[in-house]
């Protein structure tokens, strides 16, 4: 079991190395991306949430991203600037999106680079970030109590969450699939009736398992990697969560496989407090810029190219 893992590790390290070749070190590399160029036009207007019919629809930006350090007075982004750092809730166990690389003790991944882009936009460099590692179950609460400014940790946009927090526009579309041991005959979630199926507690994925027609037994654990440990120890029969997360888990264990079609769509958005709707518009302006100037594609290729070619999901707005 160790040898294939070692090969997987070499592949992953190789990928990271290639990425570093493109971008330099994780800390400095992202600064080579195109900087924001336009004048401040984001109005600090608080907008009350509207009835949710499309959970991927966010608030339309009022213009391009303001220049770093030249932010609208009284806006939340100005407060962040005055504080000197943006506080981001992230994951450290989700390979490719947000994880602590033990080889260099640095946080890495697509989500981490998005946070660095946010720092780049606000401060002019990507160093003004305080990372707060959170579990999926904490994502909403840390926004509501103001512990963090943003949550960037593979957080699916749902109408129920829109009742408590706000989201940016969609920045990645994942789907829910199933991970089983290679020896398993299960081909999809429909083959797992009465079986123990694991997902992180407090996630949309766990709710989807609970509502699956064949009634698998949902098992909620703190983190996604806890599910992989329990699968390897034979204490659960399968893991079902976001396919991109499953791909990361499969990369860490050659004895498992991802099976079945997507049976639920999980659109990722950046979580933001409803008290800062102006900041939602600011972040959406930034995402528009990242889509338009090719940064999104660069980040995708850096971290997620093994998933196949992709383009950024189009932004949808409710106003």
């Amino acid at each position, binding site marked *: 079991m160790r040898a294939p893992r070692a090969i997987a590790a070499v592949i992953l390290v190789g990928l990271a190395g290639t990425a570093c070749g493109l971008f330099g070190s994780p800390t400095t590399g992202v600064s080579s991306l195109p900087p924001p160029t336009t004048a401040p036009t984001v109005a600090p207007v608080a907008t009350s949430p509207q009835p949710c019919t499309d959970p991927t629809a966010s608030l339309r930006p009022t213009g391009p991203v303001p220049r770093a350090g030249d932010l609208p007075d009284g806006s939340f982004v100005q407060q962040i600037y005055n504080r000197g750092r943006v506080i981001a809730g992230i994951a450290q166990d989700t390979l490719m999106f947000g994880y602590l690389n033990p*080889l260099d003790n640095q946080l890495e991944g697509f989500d981490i680079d998005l946070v660095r882009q946010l720092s780049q936009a606000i401060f002019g460099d990507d160093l003004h970030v305080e990372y*707060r590692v959170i579990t999926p179950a904490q994502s909403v609460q840390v926004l509501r109590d103001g512990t963090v400014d943003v949550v960037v940790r593979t957080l699916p946009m749902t109408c129920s969450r829109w009742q408590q927090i706000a989201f940016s526009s969609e920045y990645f579309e994942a789907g829910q699939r199933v991970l089983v041991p290679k020896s398993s005959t299960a081909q999809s979630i429909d083959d797992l009736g009465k079986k123990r199926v694991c997902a992180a507690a407090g996630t949309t994925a766990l709710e989807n398992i609970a509502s699956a027609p064949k009634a698998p037994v949902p098992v909620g654990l703190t983190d996604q990697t*806890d599910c992989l440990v329990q699968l390897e120890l034979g204490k659960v029969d399968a893991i079902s969560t976001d396919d991109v997360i499953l791909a990361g888990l499969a990369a*860490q264990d050659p004895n498992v496989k991802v099976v079945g079609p997507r049976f639920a769509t999980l659109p990722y958005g950046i979580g933001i407090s409803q008290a800062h709707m102006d900041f939602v518009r600011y972040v959406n302006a930034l995402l528009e810029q990242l889509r338009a100037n090719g940064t999104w594609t660069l980040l995708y290729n850096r971290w997620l190219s093994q998933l196949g070619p992709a383009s950024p999901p189009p932004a949808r707005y409710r106003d």
Partner: protein
Amino acid sequence: MIAIAPPTAPRTLRDRAEHARRRSRTTPGHLQMLVYLIGATAAALFLIGTSTLVAAQRSVAGMRHETVPAIVGAQRIHATLADADRAEANAFLSGAIEAAGPHHQYEDDIAAAMRELEQAAEQAGGNAAVGRQIQVISVQVTQYTSLVDIARADNQQGFPVGAAYLRQASQLMHRPGDGILANVDQLGDLDAQDLGAENTTLVVTVGMLLLYGAVAVTVLALLVHSQRFLRERFRRRRNRRLLFATGILLLLAAMITSEAIFTTQTLVMAEGQHYNRLLNLWHIRSLVYDANGNESLSLIARGNGDAFDRTFQSNTARLANRPMTDDLVTASASGDVRFEGLLADELNASSGSEHDEAVAVLQAYRRFMGVDATVRARTQAGDHDSASRLALGTQPGQLGAAFAGLNTALGVTIDDAQAQFDRSVQLAEYSLIGFIALQLLTVVIVLQAYRGLKPRIDEYRA
């Protein structure tokens, strides 16, 4: 022709008693009876005294060589395993290219714990419950090391699942109720039951000493009666041999009484003070190990270590219920202990050089908590890398060095308390062995009484 005597009717018990009663009314018969009675009661005295002292000596020897070492051994296993978990958390915190020191410490701790478990299994002998418990712990430790091995392998390949395996391992170690450390504590409880049985034996021994005293009084009464009888019947002022036997009896009784008091005091001191201090100190050491391990696990969790932080707070609150300050340390050094907890218990229970050692432990704890506060402040400010470096650092002013200082201070105090306990119990044991030998004086009492009375009996035979 041989005349055959007519058969005599068998003598009944009543006949025999009547015969003895009639005979005891005669002077030689009475003297003969006194010889028998003194011999019988002295033999009873010898048997009661010897068996009581042997039982006490065995209990004390069992306490010294088996029970207390087993209980302290369980505490040592607890601390060693807690240290293994702490050391591995520190190794993990240092990254995939882990620092060599912490992982070597982990390996040494696991090896030491397994050795201790083997010794405990040998000492358990036929105690099935202890044997089963040791087996459960051994299997769990093997599971634990497997989880750590997987965690390290994943970590070294850059896989984040390694951290989840480490959490799983640590949970197996610390899980309340059926975790490894909980099972080690239950092993200690089983050994403590043996100590309870030994204490019960010692309580029974004290009861037996009352019986010993009653028999001794009977022998004394017989000797005094014999002396008076001889004075009245034979007009002799005193019988020197009876007087000598009486003196030896009084001496023996006095020595046994003083021995009982001395042994009781020594054991009360050993159990009530040194033994309790010893357990308390091992408990402190385990909590310090756990606290340091939880701090590292919290740092590994990078801002999501609330559960580890709560355990850290809980551990340190049991050591001292107030934040440690220089003022508290200074006041404690002069005997004014203004906080509660296990460290306060140690300060209150110690005196002289022990108290100096307890103050040294408190000072080291103060330094440890001081650096801990800095680590937490940096974590709070989001500076995890700097916090981790400070936590792992072994230079003066860094947490690794502060922990090592505290561990060393605790080690010195534990060694001292262990030595004091051993000295006390050893003294009681050797003293008991000496007094078992003194029980041979009852033979002298019987011989002297016999030789004192026999010439008078012979006068009637002549």
